[in-house]
């Protein structure tokens, strides 16, 4: 199914995902099928219909502005792949 405006490699870069050539070919084909399938939604008349973001009838949930305990520094860092001096180590961003 053709989907000329869907470029899987471009979208994968937006999503920060390296793809192999084989993945690129397979996903391009499979996701074009899925996009063709969801194109059926274009048949629905949605004039004047409000979008639903979620179904829970709760809005503006507040709590008292008081401090509460959370994870300790050691707990928060416990799963970090790299850490030093009680901090997460992030790959260099600027030269």
């Amino acid at each position, binding site marked *: 199914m053709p989907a000329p405006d869907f470029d899987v490699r471009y979208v994968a870069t937006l999503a920060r995902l390296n793809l192999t050539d084989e*993945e690129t070919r397979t996903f391009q084909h499979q996701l074009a099928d899925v996009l063709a399938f*969801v194109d059926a939604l274009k048949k629905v008349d949605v004039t004047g219909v409000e979008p639903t973001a979620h179904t829970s009838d709760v809005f503006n949930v507040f709590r008292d502005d008081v401090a509460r305990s959370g994870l300790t520094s050691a707990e928060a860092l416990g799963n970090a792949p790299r850490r030093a001096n009680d901090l997460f180590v992030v790959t260099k961003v600027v030269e």
Partner: protein
Amino acid sequence: MSPQDIPFLSVGALRTALRARECSPVDVIDALAARLEKVDPKVRAYLSHDLTGARQAAAAADVNLPLGGIPIGMKDVLNVKGQPCGCASHILDGYIAPYDATAVARLRAAGAIPFGRLNMDEFAMGSSTENSSKGITHNPWDFDRVPGGSSGGSAASVGADLAFAALGSDTGGSIRQPAALCGCVGLKPTYGRISRYGLVAFASSLDQIGPFTKTVEDSAILLGLMAGKDPMDSTSVDDPVPDYVAALAGAKDLRGVKLGLPKEYFIEGITPAVTKAVRAAVAHCERLGAEIIEVSLPHTEYAVGVYYIVATAEASANLARFDGVRYGHRATDPTGLLDHYMRTRAEGFGPEVKRRIILGTHVLSSGYHDAYYLRAQKVRTLIRRDFFQAFEKVDAIVCPTSPCAAFKLGERTADPLQMYLADIFTIAANLAGIPGISVPGGFDETLSPGKPLPIGLQFLAPAFAESNLLRIAHVYEQTTEWHQKRPAL
């Protein structure tokens, strides 16, 4: 009580046995360990478990608590403090949960012992558990077939009496569909009924935690203990939690109950055995006094499409957190930050997760957002409205859980779209936020010679009408014998 009999007990029956001192909590863990050793190598429901820790917890258990000393299996998507929580993904290899999910904490406070890590489709994305990066789980009724998904390990553990009950999560049917395929009860509560805090997020506007159990009564017990407002989840609803178990008391028939039969749910692609079982179940409900009314859910055909836009869009945003900095896998020797992200995520995520992240990123991207995401949200409104209108006429809807019984391992893995259609009868409930339950409703004797395969019957009810939903399902269950049949293991 003979140790061999213990694993087959329901939560309610086990509680009674523990309180009568017919067995001790340590006996229960020993009996479970023996069962696991014998059966789990064939089913492979569990990714890991800690019998030593469970025995220690059992030795200290107070059986007077509502779930005192009762082990409850955990899908690998729920944080249980001190245990791995890997979502069956390599990107979370080695991750140890630093806190309890609220649902887990509430069960623990009720005396339960959170036990084991149950297999699942990676990040709950799938309908067969074949997308797990940790290996497949087998259907206890036929090892050549899938247990369903995404909570396939949870369903198989309860279906194979490798757990008294288990927790799962349901984003588009991930509790109800595997429960149907493994012959157990699976409940997806109303969106907001149980806190999602500590559930690793897939699609935040659709995800709900719920129980897998051997009886509807057990589902009522677990729901009552987990439900209610939680300050840690702003979408949890502050609605009173009724006594769900009391709601079942004395229910013997369905007189005065109006059951809706959605005409759009009997479609091409549904197997003859499922159609036959559901028709028979409807006739049975009618004999019990229910009034059967045909209802229309006219936007049903669009539900799968809406789901795969909304769910993947939310997933692409939620899974952005897996960046190899705070937890999880990190690519070695990155040349820069972009390379760090691109390789960490490429190495950590499996194919289905990548597909969905890409689809979700596409439908949210500039130029496509309105055409896909916004339109899907509007059609979601129409799907929700269909249910509002149906529930003006009926108390609950009855329909199949899945269009077919368990399919063969490998049968659908090459065609994602075909796999997505496995959820055709369950997805709309998540989009509408309403509760649904799957109960054993018959067997398909035709697919697998000598191996009957369970068929699930689904009931759907209006938001926060779980008492009524459970009562109807309980009456159906207690007046049929499907739930008493166990797989030959």
